[in-house]
């Protein structure tokens, strides 16, 4: 089990040290400023009017009563959007404000700016909207079969994509199949959507302080809607209270900028929790049918599958989520033959898009449930069936792509298996009822509790796919022994601002590294998503620092009249490798001098899938194994997760403490999806948009996590390091469900597993 290495306190750390967060002290003192913590003298409050219906025609919209309320400074609707009326990450299909029809409950219709949040609330109440209410389209199958008229000019199918591989006629001696269902999960970041917009004099432009995952994509979409050049819309990263995919799409951005430009005054907008549930995209609910063919030894011969992802009312990133889902059908296992049919469709449910795991979470629940069925049919145990089929570097995927990444699947499984099972007896060592399923409810009869063990293994693509021009920009400036790093990489809590200085210190032999303000004052870093920033922005910082180091070596080489290629960094000095007594500290060498380099780092190009789902669509892959131990109360259908063991392929742990934090945090979100987290929809209405009714794992729900970091540096990765954010939350969900099945001997085919799935 990998415990975080000793924290280097004596000196600021290098790559591989568990360096502490540079913003940690501010955060524990409450001094760190989130995007909700930016009061400005004279700022107005903004608020948004939203549709109370999932599908309706707006018959009448009258905002004049809102204008009449004292304290109201402006009221805006679709008529006030000066540029593009719609926006979207992949295709601009989502109106800034609905004008003729509303397509989901919570769709924005108007916004107000006023002197107080309470004035805003009254102004929104005063706006008159009359609707002709329609029957919502909520069944994705009806979007596919064409039995419901199009709810959007773009039609009801966002994307249909097949993957056909090898020989479709292959039939195995062993055939197992199942229908699986994944509920709608929410990112539930703690820091609600919040921003401050400050208009330029004369409304020539605007500065937006906002919590987002991708400053430049926001800038591009906002500018288009405002009808302004991108240079007139300057974004500054406000402190971000978590993201997990939920801030990749726009929410309040265009609205707040319009309010500020219209009033000529700074405007703040803070969503409440209910508005946050309505105002950002969610994880796609999915229905997946999967059939595995295998020989009698358990070797997979063919997989057939059908995926249906409910994209909700607008496209968001459904296009890419579907790619991920269908191209991960096989999981981390070899398979030559496949027939996969995938649909991402439009309904009057809330729009769905990015959430940690991005399509792979859904696929993994299905393929891992299938692996256990296959194991049972072949007379193998869950570990043996997975080892029998484990993918290796050089294997060809069902897309035809060859896995070039380091692929330590077998090692992840074996290392996980080697972690000790809990020595706690069922219900806990101390006869403590808190340790039983149901906890403080004291409802469990100890003699009825059953324990189970389950497995899950996953593969996750890293970075953006299908031909996207994916890059990150970083600048390094070295002067007087101090490096200043500049990038637009959204720090959302994951810790890029911790590892970026580690990279600079390691390469440049210095201690003092300053991270400049994160804003659009430099080129794009791409999105903080897809487990990509360690590789991409890390790669950009690495490359910029290396270029600066070359300049430094040229300078020192010139002074010493030696070939700069002879020079190396040792500790804090530039050293002549052929004459090691000749050395100068980097501080001295850079005194009064300044070396600056800006780099755009790209990963290798990828290809779109062709009509048969073939193509080198992904960049790289990471792997992980999870083993779950659960106690189940079959009387009340309650689950207590007792332990999670995991081994994760991380390439190189640049900061082991941060990696452990990502792993444990991801596991908590996967546990949530397994046993409690679901946005419950009925007829297009969200039944639980609050933290009272949408259940999140607490301290009491999380078990101990045993972790082994599998460190096999990936030669394709700039620092040998793979992204670590997503894999933890992917296969832990099926592992927990498998453990529940093991405990109660009943098939379970949907997540989250609800009490009545267990006991009725």
């Amino acid at each position, binding site marked *: 089990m990998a415990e*975080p290495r000793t*924290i280097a306190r004596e000196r600021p750390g290098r790559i591989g040290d*568990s360096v*502490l*967060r540079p913003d*940690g*002290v501010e*955060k*524990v*003192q*409450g*001094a*760190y*400023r*989130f995007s*909700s*913590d930016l*009061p400005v003298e004279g700022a107005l409050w903004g608020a948004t009017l939203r549709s109370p219906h999932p599908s309706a025609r707006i018959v009448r919209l009258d905002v004049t009563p809102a204008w009449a309320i004292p304290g109201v400074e402006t009221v805006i609707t679709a008529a006030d959007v000066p540029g593009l009326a719609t926006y979207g990450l992949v295709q601009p299909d989502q109106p800034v404000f609905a004008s003729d029809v509303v397509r989901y409950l919570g769709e924005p219709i108007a916004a107000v700016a006023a002197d*107080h*949040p*309470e004035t805003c609330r009254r102004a929104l109440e005063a706006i008159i909207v009359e609707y002709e209410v329609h029957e919502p389209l909520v069944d994705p199958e009806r979007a596919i079969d064409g039995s419901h008229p199009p709810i959007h000019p773009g039609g009801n199918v966002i994307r249909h994509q097949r993957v056909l591989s090898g020989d479709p006629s292959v039939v195995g001696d062993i055939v197992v199949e199942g229908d699986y269902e994944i509920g709608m999960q929410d990112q539930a*970041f*703690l*820091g*609600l959507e919040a921003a401050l917009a400050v208009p330029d004099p004369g409304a020539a432009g605007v500065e937006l302080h906002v919590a987002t995952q991708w400053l430049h994509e926001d800038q591009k979409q906002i500018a288009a809607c405002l009808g302004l050049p991108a240079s007139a819309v300057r974004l500054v990263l406000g*402190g*971000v*209270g*978590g993201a*997990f995919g939920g801030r990749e799409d726009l929410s309040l951005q265009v609205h707040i900028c319009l309010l500020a430009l219209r009033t000529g005054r700074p405007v703040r907008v803070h969503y*409440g*929790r209910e508005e946050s549930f309505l105002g950002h995209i969610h994880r796609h609910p999915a229905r997946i049918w999967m059939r595995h063919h295998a020989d009698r030894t358990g070797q997979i011969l063919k997989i057939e599958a059908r995926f249906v992802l409910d994209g909700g009312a607008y496209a968001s990133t459904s296009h890419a989520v579907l790619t991920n889902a269908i191209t991960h059908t096989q999981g981390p296992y070899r398979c030559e033959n496949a027939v996969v049919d995938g649909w991402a469709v439009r309904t009057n449910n809330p729009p769905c898009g990015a959430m940690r795991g991005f399509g792979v979470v859904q696929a993994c629940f299905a393929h891992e449930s299938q692996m256990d069925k296959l194991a049972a049919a072949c007379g193998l145990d869950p570990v043996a069936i997975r080892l029998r089929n484990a993918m290796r570097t050089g294997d060809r995927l069902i897309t035809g792509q060859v896995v070039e990444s380091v692929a330590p699947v077998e090692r992840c499984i074996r290392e996980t298996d080697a972690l000790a099972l809990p020595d706690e007896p069922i219900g*806990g060592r*101390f006869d403590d009822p*808190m340790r039983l399923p149901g906890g*403080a409810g004291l409802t469990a009869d100890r003699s009825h509790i059953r324990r189970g063990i389950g497995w899950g293994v996953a593969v996750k693509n890293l970075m953006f796919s299908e031909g996207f021009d994916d890059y990150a920009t970083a600048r390094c400036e070295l002067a007087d022994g101090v490096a200043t790093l500049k990038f637009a990489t959204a720090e*959302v*809590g994951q*810790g890029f601002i911790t590892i970026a200085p580690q990279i600079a210190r390691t390469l440049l032999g210095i201690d003092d590294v300053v991270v400049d303000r994160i804003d659009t004052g430099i080129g794009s870093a791409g999105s903080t998503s897809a487990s990509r920033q360690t590789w991409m922005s890390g790669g950009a910082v690495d490359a910029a620092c290396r270029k600066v180091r070359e300049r430094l070596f040229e300078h020192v080489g010139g002074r010493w009249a030696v070939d700069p290629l002879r020079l190396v960094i040792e500790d804090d000095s530039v050293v002549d490798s052929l004459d090691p007594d000749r050395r100068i500290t980097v501080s001295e060498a850079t005194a009064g001098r300044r070396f600056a380099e800006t780099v755009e780092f790209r990963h290798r190009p990828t290809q779109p899938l062709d009509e048969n789902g073939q193509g080198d669509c992904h960049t790289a892959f990471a792997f992980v194994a999870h083993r779950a131990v659960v106690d189940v109360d079959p009387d009340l259908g309650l689950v207590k997760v007792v332990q999670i063991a995991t081994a994760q392929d991380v390439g190189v742990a640049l900061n082991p*403490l*941060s990696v*452990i*934090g990502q*792993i*444990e*945090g*991801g*596991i*908590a*979100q996967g546990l949530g999806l397994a046993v409690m987290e679901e946005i419950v929809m009925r007829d297009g209405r969200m039944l639980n948009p*609050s*933290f*009272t009714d949408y259940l*999140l*794992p*607490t*301290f009491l729900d*999380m078990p*101990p*996590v045993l972790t082994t970091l599998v460190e096999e540096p990936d030669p394709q990765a700039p620092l040998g390091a793979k992204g670590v954010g997503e894999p933890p939350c992917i296969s832990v969900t099926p592992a927990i469900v498998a453990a529940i099945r093991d405990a109660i001997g009943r098939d379970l085919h949907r997540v989250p597993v609800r009490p009545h799935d267990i006991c009725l």
Partner: protein
Amino acid sequence: MAELYRLTVNGVDHDVADAWIGESLLFVLRERIGLLGTKGACEQGECGSCSVLLDGELVCSCLVLAAAQTGRSIVTIEGIAPEGSPTDVQQAFVEAGAVQCGFCTPGLIMATQRLLERIPAPTDTEIREELSGNICRCTGYGRLVSAVVDVARRRAEGDRG
């Protein structure tokens, strides 16, 4: 608008003028008094982000009516280390890796300070039960438990020393 009322926050009296009487303590602390360390994340007392001490008891300030708290002692995250250097709890959170996005952190610091006052040597179950009113979405709680254990151990060692 209400009449002026007076709140005692971190030992200092603040006159709250021209406020709407319906404002929560959370709103008044942040927007009227300018103490932005206390965070709001659910408005229902479910997540603990807005935890403050009211006459020594841990409360969710989003559920407390500000104007009704005259004459009581209110302590916020800004008031627990008056000299400006972090408390042992704050330091342990940083060193244990218990902070990621940090939005839940001030509330958790308040809850942990109170927990260790009441139970100086809590068991694992006691830590988890006592802090279960504070939701963290980033860490999975492992490093948070580790931080609390570290503080309790160091305090015990200090007492013995």
